[in-house]
């Protein structure tokens, strides 16, 4: 039988903060949202199970998707099913919807949450590259108040986050930038229920150019992020520089693919090899640029 750690079930954020006031780095109180990561840990088969827990399922403050002040704001408890069904997400965040659709299968999408994916900090978390390229901010809170952390600063080391032991993720703010395009691609063993071998997201804006048709418009504000190629989700800044300010031509795509293969340093592990990951990341980026440019 799995272990059954004691759990508090607060019904308000204030009560949750009061419980978490006792949570320290040495003796943490582990939150549970959808449970799709943490319930696997209580089997004790992947490291020590949590000693004490706090349930977030009664905290309505962590729910809901709203559009406000030029941003989409998603409560930390927003599930993948909710993301897939949300009109606001479909209109403004199609790359996040695409990522949500690849996570686990129906049972996981019905329970797993965006906040859980972020807090779990797996290098293979599939929404994390999307959040990186969309310049998302994570709003966290605790008894000492709220603060906003840019996602680029959130994953500080292997499976380590900027969250203090007594803080919760409350919501995720994703600016809705006019004219921004974003794409998502995941490579796994099968279409459902697969942990990524490589996952990548790309965002850009089309620069001002002649209103003429054709693929000649330059890209600006290019962002490229990857998962499963480092100890945490990363931006590929050298490759971004290759793409920045130039048109997405075949020559650009070749140069970007080459730059990416040189920039990342994946490892061999149970799911894939370093060589495969490097090659497939470069090809997937090349394909993404080609599809976007339409050549």
């Amino acid at each position, binding site marked *: *039988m799995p*272990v059954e*750690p*004691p759990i508090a079930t607060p019904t308000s954020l204030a009560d949750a903060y009061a419980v978490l*006031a006792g949570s320290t780095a040495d003796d943490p109180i582990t939150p549970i949202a959808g449970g*799709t990561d943490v319930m*696997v840990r209580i089997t004790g*088969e992947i490291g020590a199970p949590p000693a004490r827990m706090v349930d977030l399922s009664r905290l309505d403050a962590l729910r809901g998707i709203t559009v406000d002040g030029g941003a989409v704001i998603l409560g930390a408890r927003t599930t993948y099913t909710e993301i897939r069904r949300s009109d606001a997400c479909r209109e403004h965040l199609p790359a996040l919807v695409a990522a949500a659709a690849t996570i686990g299968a*129906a049972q996981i999408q019905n*329970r797993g949450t965006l906040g859980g994916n972020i807090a779990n900090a797996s290098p293979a978390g599939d929404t994390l590259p999307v959040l990186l390229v969309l310049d998302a901010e994570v709003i966290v809170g605790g008894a000492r108040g709220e603060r906003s952390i840019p996602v680029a600063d959130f994953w500080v080391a292997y499976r380590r986050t900027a969250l203090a032991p007594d803080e919760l993720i409350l919501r995720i703010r994703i600016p809705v930038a006019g004219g921004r395009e974003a794409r998502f691609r995941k490579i796994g063993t099968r279409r459902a229920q697969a942990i990524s071998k490589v996952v990548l997201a790309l965002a850009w804006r089309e620069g001002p150019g002649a209103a003429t048709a054709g693929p000649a418009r330059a890209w600006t504000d290019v962002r490229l992020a990857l998962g499963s190629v480092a100890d945490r989700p990363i931006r590929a800044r050298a490759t971004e520089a290759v793409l920045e300010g130039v048109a997405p031509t075949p020559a650009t795509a070749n140069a970007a693919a080459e730059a990416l293969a040189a920039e990342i340093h994946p490892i061999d592990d149970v799911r894939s090899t370093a060589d495969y990951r490097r090659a497939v990341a470069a090809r997937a980026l090349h394909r993404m640029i080609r599809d976007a440019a339409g050549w």
Partner: protein
Amino acid sequence: MTSDPAGRPEPDSAVTWRFSVNGDPVEVAAPGMRRLLDVLREELALTGTKEGCGEGECGACTVLVDGVPVDSCLVPVCQVEGARIATVEGLAEPSPEGLVLDQLQQAFLEAGGAQCGICTPGMLMAARAYLDDGGTADEDAIREAIAGNLCRCTGYTKIVDAIAIAAGGRR
């Protein structure tokens, strides 16, 4: 829950949880982190729900919580307080002549959608949710709906056929 003087959750302690299973109200005294799967099988003696992998990969333990399919091995009982749970035991309808299989179960029999049977309760519940949500006989949509349910016997073809039959489309 109880807590120590610092307000931290402390071991003990069965709490009483109230929810419904297949329409009947139930009360269960159990630690909040007990898996819904164990509550169903051990406390409530509803052994139709199977444990396969115990980590959400295989879907054998799929039940519906408020109409939505979930892996009951990944749901702690404290999170179903007040919820409606549906398990495979609730599919067949009582009648004067005894239980009558629901249309989906009937279709599994007809198409040969069950072999060893371990995946069947979870398959049925995932498929039931798909049909209740307006799912059609479209093969791709059916395959996506059961992508979280592994079967090591059938090769899936007959399961997909059965769900398509229940959706009103003969293949």
